[in-house]
């Protein structure tokens, strides 16, 4: 029988973190930022079927990068947690803070359990409030820690670079079109300073819109609406007007 080599706990944890970070860095990024009427999610994602951004509950949405099967698992867990809580108590009792805590526990347990490989995912849980100051954005790295973010945040491949680009340019009270423009610009930046151009087909865009009349504030920005918002980039005066339109367009009434 062979005796296993001694590996110090520090080394073991560092190895696992390194493994998870590398996995996350391979994928495309997701940007989440606050705009005047809510929270905007923009992901570079050519797939129409596999979503990186999804609805969790009335005011809560989820964005993730990394391995699809792993974060999909976490997403379904989150939906179950939220629906169960909302059914047992009240819809108002489901909060992003509670959900972020559950995710942190799950990720932390998996990260430090020697039996499992660490999840190669990084999550964002965001909740839109009645006003911009009530918005909450939590970032959950692979090791189960929680980072409370304000304004804008990026996760995934080029997260550091994109975050610093966003931090310099993000301001409060952006319109939807301005926010989208900023997000797309930041995602289009390459590792080595070059720029790619991203089209509407390569983007997955969704908003948590506090002005939506329905209880469920999550809405995907798709097709022609997305193209129109992207086109309005050049002229800031127009973009302000365009930013208003999605709220008015949603004529469907749920309750």
């Amino acid at each position, binding site marked *: 029988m062979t005796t296993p080599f001694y590996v110090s706990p520090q080394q073991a944890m560092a190895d696992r973190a390194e493994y998870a970070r590398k996995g996350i860095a391979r994928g495309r990024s997701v940007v989440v930022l606050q705009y005047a009427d809510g929270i905007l999610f923009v992901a570079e994602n050519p797939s129409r*079927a596999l*979503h990186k951004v*999804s*609805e*969790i509950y009335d005011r809560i949405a989820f964005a993730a990068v990394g391995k699809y099967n792993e974060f999909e698992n976490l997403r*379904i867990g989150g*939906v*179950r947690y939220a*629906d*169960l809580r*909302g*059914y*047992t108590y009240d819809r108002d009792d489901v909060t992003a803070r509670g959900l972020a805590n559950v995710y942190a526990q799950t990720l932390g347990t998996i990260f430090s359990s020697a039996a499992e490989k660490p999840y190669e995912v990084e999550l964002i849980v965001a909740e839109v409030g009645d006003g911009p100051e009530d918005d909450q954005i939590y970032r959950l790295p692979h090791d189960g820690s929680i980072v409370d973010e304000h304004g804008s945040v990026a996760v995934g491949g080029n997260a550091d670079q994109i975050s610093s680009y966003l931090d310099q340019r993000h301001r409060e009270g952006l319109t939807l079109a301005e926010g989208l423009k900023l997000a797309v610009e930041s995602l289009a930046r390459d590792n080595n300073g070059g720029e790619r151009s991203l089209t509407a087909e390569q983007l997955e865009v969704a908003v948590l819109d506090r002005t939506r009349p329905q209880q469920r504030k999550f809405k995907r920005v798709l097709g022609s609406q997305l193209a129109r918002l992207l086109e309005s980039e050049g002229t800031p005066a127009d973009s302000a007007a365009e930013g208003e339109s999605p709220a008015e367009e949603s*004529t*469907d*009434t*749920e*309750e």
Partner: protein
Amino acid sequence: MDFLGAHQPELLPGNRPLPAVQGAIEAPHGTTIVAATFPGGVVLAGDRRATMGNLISQRDVEKVFPADEYSAVGIAGTLGFAVEMVKLFQLELEHFEKVEGTVLSLEGKANRLSTMIRGNLGMAMQGLAVVPIFAGWDVDREKGRIFSYDVTGGRSEEHGFAATGSGSLFARGALKKLYREDLTESETTTAVVQSLYDAADEDSATGGPDLGRRIYPIVTVINEDGFKRLTEAEVSEIARTIHERRLEAPDGPRAPLL
């Protein structure tokens, strides 16, 4: 729901032990619900009365609920169980939509409700039945459809119009004489409120429009734009017009003999 069953079975209606009682329990009951289709949508409406034995337990109870964006449920029967059933039904549709990323078909939703009613059979045997009507816009076939149920969960699609609850006999009779397949949306809502008026006229457990207290029936319309509940102003307009005409002809509009 399966998940709920595995994790917190006490939250599911079917999993509670039945209390051993003699005779029927006195609990608030909801009364009359009517539905009618028209080209381009479906109308689902209900009166506002809840009764407990021979007493009126609530005058302004709401018995028509949106199930999701394109469907609604109207409930008659034991109010507590019915409201819980609707809540669970809404939860299930929303949960499916979020997890799967697509919406259930209208047939799928109707079948699901059927299972839930069957789960309540034990309670129904003790006099605490729940009998809903499910109405919705079928996105695939592009038409409004109505499904009615019996206590055992038997599901049948109704063509044209349907009614459930204690006043349903009268409401259905009235609607039968007023309904035509080519009614417009506003004509259908009027016909439906007329039938509720007639039900309230004959059945003590059904409440008519209460002009004094401004309590009017709940009238909802589901069409390709989704679920919409008529505002109080809109329903009061319909109810008042009908009331005015009934002051002259108390039995309402007369159908031709042949």
